């Protein structure tokens, strides 16, 4: 679970990387790991600490798909939408899962429990279709196993 924004802690995280060349990405990853997202306050602080403009930092944060301006749900389910998974009916399975939680790609359930995101390749292409739930790889998805994952999450949410 990520902590609420804390400038002292954030400053400590940023300074941990001082002396490192091109430290922006490692810093942003660490901040997101600690606080769940890279908020405008974090952008301001990184700019100040690295002696950059806020525009420059915002430019980096907004360029990369991984960095969020809002925290994700407590669980993050990434579903692969790339070609190898397409060839094994991944798109239809993904649609089913989205429909079940009434979500579109990238959205979070209103109770903040689950975010479903698209990903383009997890490198599990010989066992397609694949997914990643909270960093754990899942492959050879079919209707039954996708249903099981959805059911498990739904149970936790109380639906």
């Amino acid at each position, binding site marked *: 679970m990520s902590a609420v924004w804390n400038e002292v802690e954030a400053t400590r995280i940023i300074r941990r990387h001082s002396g490192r060349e*091109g430290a922006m*990405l490692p810093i942003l*990853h660490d901040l997101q790991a600690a606080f769940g997202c890279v908020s405008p306050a974090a952008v301001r602080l990184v700019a100040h600490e690295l002696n950059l403009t806020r525009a420059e930092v915002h430019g980096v944060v907004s*360029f*990369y798909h991984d960095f969020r301006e809002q925290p994700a749900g407590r669980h993050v389910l990434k579903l692969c939408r790339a070609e190898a998974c397409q060839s094994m009916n991944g798109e239809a399975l993904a649609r089913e899962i989205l429909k079940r939680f009434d979500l579109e790609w990238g959205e979070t359930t209103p109770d903040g429990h689950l975010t479903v995101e698209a990903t383009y390749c*997890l*490198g599990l*292409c010989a066992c*397609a279709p694949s997914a990643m739930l909270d*960093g754990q790889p899942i492959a050879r998805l079919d209707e039954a196993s996708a249903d099981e994952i959805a059911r498990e999450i739904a149970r936790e949410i109380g639906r």
Partner: protein
Amino acid sequence: MTRIFIPRDAAARAVGADRVAAAVEAEAKRLGQPVEIVRTGSRGLFWLEPMVEVETPVGRIAFGPMTSKDVPALFTSSFGTGHPLHLGRPEEIPFLKRQTRITFARCGIVDPLSLDDYRAHGGCRGYERAKVLGSAKTVEEVTKSGLRGRGGAGFPTGIKWKTVADTAADRKYIVCNADEGDSGTYADRMIMEGDPFALIEGMAIAGFAVGATKGYVYIRSEYPDAIRAMERAVLLHPFEGFDVEIRVGAGAYVCGEETSLLESLEGKRGQVRAKPPLPAHKGLFGRPTVINNLISLATVPAILADGAQHYADLGMGRSRGTMPIQIAGNVKHGGLFEAAFGLTLGEIVEDIGGGTATGRPVRAVQVGGPLGAYFPRALFDTPFDYEAFTAKDGLIGHGGVVVFDDTVDMAHQARFALEFCAIESCGKCTPCRIGSTRGVETMDKVIRGERTEANLALIEDLCQTLKFGSLCALGGFTPYPVMSALKHFPEDFNRPRLSVAAE
């Protein structure tokens, strides 16, 4: 004490390897039978994963695909032929037996983080020989081997190294491109999880050859297991005087392009740089930089250890040595097949891959990732070779082969290629940034049956602009999947559809 080998490879874990390992441990405890579980990389026979191997007096014996339910029978059958999933010696499984494993010689066999294992299986010999040869001769050896960039561009690795070696600077860098974003590829991931010291040794040899003492491995964030393995391996490696740092990407496909990757490493937006200057002259932080694909670097130790000629003797034409072909998608025997260049696409898909997993006929094969062409069966005689694929308006890229059965809608695939380009475009050049989006819109019209002929002409024209007007391969190669789909599967672009295929 029985030694039992179970992969920790992410794909093996994704299909239950951790549960199998836990079951083996529990069953051994219950029976009071001492076992040592060694978590390895994967052999790359993914339809058999989780594949468990047991050390016996006649060598290792494999079982798979295992589930935790199949574990008790391992013990009751005394790890023998009585087990229904008994596969015999893995080296005798045809898929593995037919391979020439050089880059992947240790993958799936050794404990990835054991230096003793690494040395016992031929590790470090390349580095030691490089030290004896000296730096100039080391570069020469890599040039003589004929090794070309395995990321897709196919540029001779030795020439790249020589350029960096000949450029004077206060600091130089070795950068490993482990931003393996192509769908259908997983060779880099397997090495990082299964034989990380091979990569580090390759980087240390590169550093010695060109005069660099610092290396970066840029790994995509979609590979958390590989990141963990590499972060541990860099703390253990024995190549003194060479420092390796792991950097993690942030979900941008374009960062697999070398100049974009360098920008990202510098902490900036991953936007492509115009060339020249070449990274070999002015790369990371403005210093001369060797930036190589992971497979190129991980192959170097074997080239040095056994000599350039040994490697150059394999292959065909100007494609020397071996290529780890990654067979994926709708295929019966999906997995990593390392072989000398020259197998035909048909052999790879039908013979080695065993046709589709669904049992339906193969209709299209995309080779080389999302920027690679779709080949029909009519081109199955094309040999796996850089030049042969170029001659057929395709590319081998990083060696990914994604198989589709006859239910595939090629207009939908062409649309996806353009959509992917739009999602991942870095935005620096106009053809890629704007052209991809206009392409999706136009393809939607084609799919709806709106002025099909005129809109297809527009797509062709747009592809010309993308091909010749883009700064890098993302925009420049997106026409490959689009135009190959149009050329080889025209019937899919001109038919009424009951429902709109596009979301």
